[in-house]
């Protein structure tokens, strides 16, 4: 282990020099393909001992992907107390990124490796994923699956010791025959039920292969329920923030919500307490969709639910004010996951109640 690490440190220091020169060069250049370092990141870790910080108070360096997201900002705020954090973002071409983003780089491009060369990461928290409503299916697949495959190859190459990856409960798929309290062994039926979300299932499969093939990466995969709260911009959160929200006539599936701060706590716990595996993350509390809308101060817009083709068409007609039509079954059938294993393994109890969480949306109307 020491030999590759020496090589890594050398490469990182050489690269840091190159990177500084590059930064100077690009001040005048409007666009660049190399990693766009946005601000001065903490210096590379000096030794292997310093790099290995799992479960100890020793500082190590962590790569957090999707660093512009609200969840990542909470995670980074928690991690900064004990670790050096490098935030990387690959989504979109925004003009203004939050301070948590150190690099803007596509995982599929060669310059991404420079970030690994420059910093001796001991851990990766992979939160960056293009959501279902963002971009096309092919683009999502390329960024989420192919990009993550590269991330994992680089993690192996540069001796990363801990990886936490964010998946989603959507991988179970929504179906009338789903049992309640779905546990981690339940098949990921989304690939069969809704091919549009196949990238989420493939992403999980990829991590699962590495989980068993490369145990030295200590991969922990988290499958959270609906994440909501301040700053979150996913489908369900966006809808709760709307004054009028569509719902299907005669359907009010049971749902679970987790507050973004609780989810950030779950991510940090799973990073610090090293128990590799796949875990659902959800509170042991439930609310029907239409009740949630009313608690969030939304007015309901009833859409026809039968025949299914008419329901899909009416959802499509509402555009961004409704979920994408291929996710419509998540608003018809309950997908309740069992977060018990995660709660027991990581001693996790959510601090925010459902009333707190939905009250946030009501207060902002």
């Amino acid at each position, binding site marked *: 282990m020491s030999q590759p690490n020496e090589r890594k440190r050398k490469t990182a220091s050489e690269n840091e020099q190159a990177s500084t020169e590059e930064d100077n060069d690009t001040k005048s250049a409007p666009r660049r393909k190399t990693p766009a370092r946005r601000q001065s990141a903490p210096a590379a870790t000096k030794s292997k001992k310093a790099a290995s910080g799992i479960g100890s108070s020793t500082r190590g360096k962590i790569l957090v992907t999707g660093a512009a997201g609200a969840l990542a900002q909470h995670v980074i705020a928690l991690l900064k107390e004990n670790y050096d954090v490098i935030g990387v973002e690959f989504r979109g071409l925004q003009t203004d990124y939050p301070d948590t983003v150190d690099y803007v780089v596509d995982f599929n491009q060669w310059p991404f490796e420079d970030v690994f060369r420059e910093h001796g990461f001991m851990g990766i928290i992979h939160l960056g994923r293009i959501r279902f409503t963002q971009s096309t299916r092919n683009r999502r697949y390329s960024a989420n699956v192919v990009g993550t495959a590269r991330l994992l190859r680089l993690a192996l190459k540069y001796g990363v010791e801990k990886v936490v990856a964010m998946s989603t409960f959507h991988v179970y798929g929504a179906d*009338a*025959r789903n*049992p*309640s*309290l*779905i*546990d981690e062994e*339940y098949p990921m039926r989304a690939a069969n039920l809704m091919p549009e979300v196949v990238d989420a299932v493939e992403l999980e499969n990829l991590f699962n292969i590495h989980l068993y093939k490369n145990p030295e990466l200590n991969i922990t995969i988290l499958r959270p329920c609906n994440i909501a709260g301040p700053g979150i911009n996913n489908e369900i959160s966006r809808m709760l923030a709307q004054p009028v929200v569509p719902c*299907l*006539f*005669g*359907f*009010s*599936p*049971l749902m679970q919500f987790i507050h973004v701060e609780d989810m950030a706590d779950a991510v940090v716990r799973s990073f610090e307490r090293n128990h590799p595996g796949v875990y659902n993350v959800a509170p*042991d*509390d*439930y*609310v*029907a969709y*239409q*009740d949630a809308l*009313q*608690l969030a101060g939304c007015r309901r817009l009833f859409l026809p*639910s*039968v025949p299914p083709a008419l329901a899909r068409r009416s959802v499509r007609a509402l555009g961004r004010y409704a979920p994408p039509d291929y996710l419509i079954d998540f608003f*018809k*059938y*309950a997908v*309740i996951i*069992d977060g018990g294993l995660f709660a027991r393994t990581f001693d996790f109890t959510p601090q925010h*109640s*459902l*009333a707190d969480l939905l009250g946030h949306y009501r207060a902002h109307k």
Partner: protein
Amino acid sequence: MRTRQFLKPRTVGRDVDQLVDALPKHNIGTQGYDPWGLNPDTAKITFTAVRWLYQNYFRVQAQGLEHIPGEGRLLIVGNHSGQLPMDGVMVSFAVANKSENARLPRSMIERWFPSVPFLGNWMNSVGGVIGDPKNCGKMLEREESIVVFPEGIRGSGKPYRLRYQLQRFGHGFMHLAMEHNAPIVPVGVVGCEETMPSLVNIKPLARMLGMPYFPLAPLVPLPARVFLNFGKPMHFANDARNERDVEWRVEEVKDAIRDLIDTGIAQRKSIF
């Protein structure tokens, strides 16, 4: 939520309110739902109607309720009949309406119910859950009691000429009982066959509507008297060597249910 808030004070009497409040509800969350969708307020509204049906329409007579323990995991296994799951509703209400050690057993419903607007949500909110072994296993782990009809649609959808003839039992309930060390209380249901006698199953219509069967039967249940006879708890160790062993144990439960059906038929003086 608003519909419940509107209906509850207008329909629910104090006795039903107290009855549901007294039931153990240890899996209910802060918003009044358990993981399977049970909602006590909806249950109260529904029980107001069910109680009238139980006492005045079907005039249910239940014997052997002392065999149902007040707590702990339990499978209540019975014969299925009557096209609609009225037998499950009556068995559940009988146990919830006990003078001592009352509890609300969960009824297994067919897998297509959740796909029907309103009906799926409503059945979940009064205690119905789809008949999935994983669901059953999780509920037993959480010390719930479950009403199971192992005949499934073979029993409920059978024509009147096959009344009180037990159809093939699935083995799933026995595997669950053995794996989770849950006692089985057999129940013989008499009278539900006559609530909705079916002459024939119109299969093409059922296929077209995506239903498991479409009976040629009365449009509303007939007011037949219903007799429920609960037997003594049966315990099965988790030591079956093969499926043949399981089959023998299933036959033991079927024999117990047959005896309880015979008892119910003997008790009945008239159908209506």
